[in-house]
């Protein structure tokens, strides 16, 4: 049977893709960011996941304003890196797992989550930057990926509670997949940042660290944080942290901390990164 063995939370800042691709990842500015992922890269090599369910948001690449799915799941065979305006990143294409993805999609719909099914799309930095951070410079990604896109741009985004419940339903879907697969779930985006208006540049280190600490052990309180609190305390784009709650919800009632890293600044944001295991 398939099983979710670990969860990873991570920011997905586009500048990190640039730093990685231009090999600036160990300079004075980027060094403190990338060294925080050294532990995780070694751990991923040993953990050898077969599939990653990668929760992220599209940044006006695959979706424009014509269609705005709240939750969408990629059921395709493969996905190419998107051209976000500077040409596509020169990173490997992303190989999907259509059997598992369709299984999850069907299970979620029967659990009353109205999923949008995607068969073709390009994937932007929201998905490819976390892959680079966890696996480094590789000829092909060592895992198959099930993309799970969440609307956190046009209001209202889903509530933290709904995201958590979706994570729980994903865990049940994975557990009912008959093939023996080692599956990880990653929640990406955040932490505190605001990219717009006179308040741009907002960083709330205290709040971010409370959120990171809250992901360890029992985390039930995190699902009740309202949108307005993310907006006031962590900036307009800090709302992306609701996507971490899909990951956290999938890990069950309690977690164990394997690795944690936090650094300011990274472009306009704080970078947060955490690796968790479900507590038996």
């Amino acid at each position, binding site marked *: 049977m398939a099983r979710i063995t670990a969860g990873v939370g991570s920011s997905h800042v586009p500048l990190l893709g640039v730093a990685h691709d231009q090999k600036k990842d160990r300079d004075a500015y980027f060094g403190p960011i990338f060294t925080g992922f050294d532990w995780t890269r070694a751990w991923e090599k040993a953990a050898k996941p077969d599939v990653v369910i990668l929760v992220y948001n599209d940044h*006006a690449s695959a979706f*424009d304003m014509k269609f705005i799915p709240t939750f969408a799941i990629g059921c395709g065979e493969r996905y190419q890196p998107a051209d976000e305006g500077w040409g596509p990143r020169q990173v490997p294409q992303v190989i999907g797992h259509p059997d598992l993805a369709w299984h999850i999609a069907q299970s979620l719909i029967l659990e009353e989550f109205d999923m949008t099914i995607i068969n073709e799309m390009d994937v932007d930095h929201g998905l490819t930057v976390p892959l680079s951070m966890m696996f480094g410079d590789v000829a092909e990604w060592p895992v198959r990926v099930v993309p799970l896109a969440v609307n956190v741009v046009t209001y209202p985004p889903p*509530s*933290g509670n709904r995201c958590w419940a979706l994570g729980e339903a994903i865990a049940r879907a994975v557990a009912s997949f008959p093939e023996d697969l080692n599956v990880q779930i990653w929640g990406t985006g955040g932490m505190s940042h605001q990219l717009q*208006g*006179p308040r741009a540049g907002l960083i709330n280190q205290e709040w971010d660290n409370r959120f990171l600490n809250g992901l360890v052990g029992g985390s039930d309180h995190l699902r009740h944080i309202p*949108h307005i609190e993310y907006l006031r305390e962590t900036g*307009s784009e800090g709302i992306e942290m609701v996507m971490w709650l899909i990951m956290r919800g999938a890990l069950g009632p309690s977690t164990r901390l394997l690795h944690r890293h936090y650094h300011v600044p990274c*472009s306009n944001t704080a970078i947060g990164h955490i690796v968790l295991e479900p507590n038996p």
Partner: protein
Amino acid sequence: MTAPKDIHAYLAEFEDIPGTRVFTAARARQGYYLNQFAMSLMKPENRERWKADEAAYLAGWPLSEDQKQAVLARDYNRLLNLGGNIYFLSKIFSTDGLSFVQAVSTMTGASVEEYQAMMNAGGRSPEGVRSKGEGR
């Protein structure tokens, strides 16, 4: 439940955050073509046409005169007020060859250098910019 039952109360709170335009349905409607115009710059052939003659390219889109002027002036705060969303507007400043830090800083009243220095020192504190009404 984390979502309020009353959509009016939910939306009203967003207007209380200083220096912030939350991308609500009202803004999404007002800015629909503005954001779709920005999105069109994802295609290299469109970027070439745009760079060759910005005003002529804009003429092909049903934007308001205000929106067109704000695009040509790269006045991002005004564009946010007119329904723009930063992820879509980023296609404009990317086409201009600007980074997020360079473009985002133009909305804050600080120079790029001052903004970068603020970020390097830990970013903008939330103290005093959480709520207009409560002044905190």
